[in-house]
């Protein structure tokens, strides 16, 4: 046989599981052969469970933390629900990493704002950890985090650390508060009125498709150039290697040309938003 099949995954052991919220599970993984995974924040994996299928998932931990890697899976369908039934000691099967990352070279030495809505905080956690681990390489660092309800906030342990950490300005908002909620109430774009965003800021936007338009409108009002705004796009994916055609946006492929695009790059891709 010539080369190995590009569809052949590697076995990874689940070394820790946390129930992040009702439908999300946070898995910490390590390859069964002990090898490390080399990736950039923002890249994706194809994660599978034999007999159920394979789905694209962003890496939720930073490459600066090499002992293991994290993913967070929301159980919404056939594959993701099956994955979320797994426990510590079980195996998942991984291909990747694929795609490009959050363009570290373009955001280093600038103020950084991450706008994360819902599950969008998962892939950006990779970048958040990276920035915190290499804090001196970046200027002022702000995180906007929006969720529907406090019970749907992900990474509770991280959040309580980040709230105390002076290296990160964290602003949290929910649609519907509960009686213990101390953050803001409203939609994520309301947070732009609560703090200063420097014009030189590099902005990363990650969340449900409807969020993008509103966030970009706000950033336009602040005069932030489109080449300095990066969005993390989601599309149906079956291969992650630029062949199956499912993730195509006009002539670009989210799996190989993205998932991170600058808003400038999307200007000639009318299918993007």
């Amino acid at each position, binding site marked *: *046989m*010539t*080369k*190995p*099949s*590009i*569809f*052949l*995954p590697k*076995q990874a052991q689940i070394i820790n599981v946390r129930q992040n919220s009702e*439908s999300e599970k946070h898995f910490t993984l390590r390859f069964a052969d002990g090898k490390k995974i080399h990736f950039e924040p923002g890249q994706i994996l194809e994660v*599978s469970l*034999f*007999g*159920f*299928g*394979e789905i694209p998932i962003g890496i939720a931990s930073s490459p600066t933390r090499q002992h293991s890697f994290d993913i967070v899976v*929301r159980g*919404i*369908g056939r594959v993701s629900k099956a994955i979320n039934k797994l426990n510590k000691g079980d*195996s998942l*099967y991984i291909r990747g990493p694929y795609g490009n990352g959050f363009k570290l070279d373009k955001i280093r030495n600038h103020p950084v704002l991450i706008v994360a809505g819902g*599950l969008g905080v998962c892939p950006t956690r990779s970048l958040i950890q990276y920035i915190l681990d290499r804090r001196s390489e970046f200027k002022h660092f702000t995180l906007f985090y929006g969720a*529907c309800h406090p019970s749907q906030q992900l990474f509770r342990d991280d959040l309580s650390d980040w709230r105390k950490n002076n290296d990160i300005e964290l602003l949290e908002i929910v*649609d519907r508060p509960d009686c213990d909620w101390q953050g803001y109430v409203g939609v994520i774009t309301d947070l732009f009125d609560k703090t200063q965003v420097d014009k030189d800021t590099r902005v990363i936007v990650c969340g*449900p*498709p409807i969020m993008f338009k509103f966030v970009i409108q706000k950033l336009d009002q602040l005069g932030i150039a489109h080449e300095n705004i990066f969005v993390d796009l*989601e*599309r*149906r994916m*079956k*291969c992650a*290697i*630029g*062949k*199956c*055609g*499912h993730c*195509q*946006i*006009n*002539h670009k492929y989210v799996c*190989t040309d993205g998932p991170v695009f600058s808003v400038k790059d999307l200007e000639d891709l*009318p*299918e993007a938003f």
Partner: protein
Amino acid sequence: MGFYCISSKNFPAFIDELIHQQSVIAPQLVQSKPYNPSSSEFFSFSLLKKASNLRLDYDTTILPPKKVFFPPQQVLLSFKNGEFQAVLDLYETILFGVHPYDLLAIEQTDFLFSDKYEDIHYTAQRQLTTIIGSNIQRSAEHSFFSSMNANVKPSTHDGFITKIADTYIYEVLTGKAGNLLKYGQFTDASQQQIDLAVKENERVKSKSHLNYSADEIKQGLEKSYADLELWEQLAKSCYACGSCNTSCPTCYCFNIEDKWHIDQISGERTRYWDSCMTEDFAKISLGPGKSGEAQTENFRPTTGARMRHRLMRKMVYLNDKLGTQACVGCGRCATSCTADIADPVNIINTVMEKYHD
């Protein structure tokens, strides 16, 4: 590597000997064709049992020959109790009698399946296949290959057969094709015969034509992009069946699914042909919304948006990557469309009427 000739009388014995030596996949008549009563003859590339079944006078086949390396269903991996392995179901074969437009299409899929990430499930079977092209003796009803890819000549095949009068001229392009010479009574072709073969191939023209150059079509389609209403009009009666994709030699989109065997401990990960014209092709699940109901987003929700995408893929999006258009003008999509709306010639003419300056 040279031109050889074999008489019509000796040709069947050559084919029978090939069948004896290896599996041969070639165009043959398929009998019943209920869905299109207007045409009586339909052909298919399938395993050849005897020389007399070979129909080199075919107009085109229902499905393109891509199915030899990229089958409608292909097992990629098998698994059992946590063990798993790649599956390569390979066989040596001769793909015989491929028309030039399909040779161009194979050249495209060869490139696309090797580009950046080589997909050995395609390339390994491709390497075991000897491809012998053949001249078009009659053109298919909806064909427009004479208007497509004028500047590209197919080059990935191994040999090419041209019928002139009662002789076949066999052009040998690779060692693989040369190896077949020993199975038939070939002699060297004369310069006159070679010239006749070239003329015969130049003579054949498609039934249908486009009146615009590749660049004009690209510009026209790009301009029409914002006019979704026009595309919705063109796709109004589309059933979203995807036949225009499955019959296309340059369509290569796929889906991957896992299936258990009946024992519930083993199974397979299989890829299937997929179609960008079907409703769910670009649909994603978003999980439960605020009131708990499952939410989805479809990035190409209408037949018009999907037909526009198919045409953009054939005439615009891949042009830079391939150096040519991703349509070879075989006309199969037009023949396979029950709603009779898939013909690129009609679509392009309508678009160009409005957007050609």
